[in-house]
């Protein structure tokens, strides 16, 4: 009798793949880029997006960055969440007069979804990406994590929900920035496996 499975799933898709698991959410082809230039270089090589789409998406991600980046009350709290050297003040990052005492992570890439005209109405085809504290990347709402800011895959359309504005809201303190996280105090960079 055969001792092995007839079929197995060979592919590791990344955290976003779980969202489509129940087949309740639409899937979107998406690609991440560290900057505009890398998107345009790929466009020239017949990538998923054209140079114009790269530019429009980059502009949208930059606008969302200004509007919805996580905002913190101190550089220390921001760097705890996003890693050292990955934050700057609002004044440095927002052209028309941000505060020098509110801190935001630096834009570290952007994610473009092939929304086929579905953008708008609470959706945005592009999302800013930020460094997280463990060396990966996260989105503005800090609800997803990505291992890299370049690469291509299929993910749930909810990844492209427009993030809530943080402009004019109280910036997060250490307590609010870590209001989740009652589990995992003993995880490090090391795997837990045996």
């Amino acid at each position, binding site marked *: 009798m055969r001792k092995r499975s007839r079929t*197995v799933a060979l592919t590791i898709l990344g*955290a976003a793949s779980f*969202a489509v698991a129940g087949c309740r959410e639409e899937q979107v082809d998406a690609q991440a880029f560290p900057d505009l230039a890398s998107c345009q270089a790929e466009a020239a090589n017949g990538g998923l997006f054209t140079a114009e789409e790269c530019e429009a998406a980059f502009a949208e991600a930059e606008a969302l960055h200004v509007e919805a980046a996580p905002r913190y009350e101190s550089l220390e709290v921001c760097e705890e969440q996003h890693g050292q050297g990955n934050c700057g003040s609002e004044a440095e990052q927002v052209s028309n007069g941000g505060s020098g005492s509110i801190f935001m992570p630096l834009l570290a890439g952007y994610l473009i979804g092939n929304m086929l005209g579905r953008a708008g109405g609470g959706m945005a085809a592009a999302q800013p990406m930020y460094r997280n504290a463990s060396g990966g990347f996260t989105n503005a709402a800090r609800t997803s994590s990505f291992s890299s800011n370049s690469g291509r895959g299929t993910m749930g359309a909810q990844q492209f929900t427009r993030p809530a504005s943080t402009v004019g809201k109280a910036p997060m303190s250490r307590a609010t920035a870590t209001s989740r996280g009652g589990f*995992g105090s003993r995880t490090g960079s090391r795997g*837990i496996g*045996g």
Partner: protein
Amino acid sequence: MQKISLPERPDWRQTARDAGFTFADMHGEPYWEESSAYRFDLRQIEDDIEDPSTELHAMCREAVAAIIASERLMTRLGIPEAHHDLIADSWNRAEPEIYGRFDLAYDGKGPAKLLEYNADTPTSLYEAAAFQWQWLEDQLANGVLAEGSDQFNGIHEALVERFRELFPKGTDLHFTAAAGNPEDYATVEAMGWAAREAGMGAHYCDLDKIGISAEGQFLDGEDRVMETLFKLYPWEDLLQDDYASHIVGSGCMFLEPAWKAVLSNKGLLPVLWQMFEGHPNLLPAYFADDVADALVASGRADRAIADSFDRAADAMRRGHVVKPIFSREGASISIVENGEVSETSPNTDYDHHPRIVQAYHPLPEFDGFRPVIGAWIVGQNCVGMGVREDRSRITQDLSRFKPHFIAG
């Protein structure tokens, strides 16, 4: 059991990249290594690995019942007193186990010996269940392996079947692991694939994104209530966390269940030896406190186990391994032979935990590497196997995963 050199698949690195298997090389060393493979015959697989492992799991279930009935044993296993009830309740409610991995010493001839049971958070599931399987299919197609070669690897199918039998179709299951660790994540996603194939809704949430509602329910990163949570995070750590006090009353069923805390614990090994002394797949094992004097000098072992220790004393003095009750990836383990420490792990992360001693059973050596058999349990049966090998006598986190096949 032989180690056989075979041509590598020319494109396997690309296959690994395409599959998202990003840790096929780790720390500059190959982790997945297919320039050779282990060959077994069907009798070795079925009589020496599969059936004994299924039996070992059944013995472990008996040990759980014994440990949970004894406050003294629970304490010796380092279970915080505040959580004894949580663990006992999860056993009494018969919360289901999904998977586990026995680490066995086996040389192809004598009975396999249990080194430890990774019953709570075993990793390398993706490599064993999927990537290893693809290797076999590819090498059959390439003509590298003879037609009819097989592999002991029904892991994925058994997981699908396990989820199907436990949960009604369409049940929402959540999966969590520490963020930013691709090895752990791959195991969780391999599990998620199986759940999805069984018709479940599978949702992932980073461990540190879990929140708690005003009603005391656990929430995922998008504020959805979690009713069933597969966590690749050890119970001994979970029970130390701030949220541990919310587990009772959260209405959330954890997988693996809390009772696995007493199996994925080297304190299990002396308990098994007391219950099943002389079993061919077990090595003599004792709590270090009970036998320390008897091991180093002419002192006596603790009265309760003195007779048993006398029967094993020669073997134990010849060589034994000292292990903390909690330890992963070979950390804080030493081998003592004839009273001298002959090998010790450079990683001392777990040094502060209580210890056990287990009779030393050397791993076989093939071309300078020592393989450990990982026998996978799904539900209550052994359904597959993976082999990891290491140059060192203590298998550590730099060990390599080797494919295996069955022929003859």
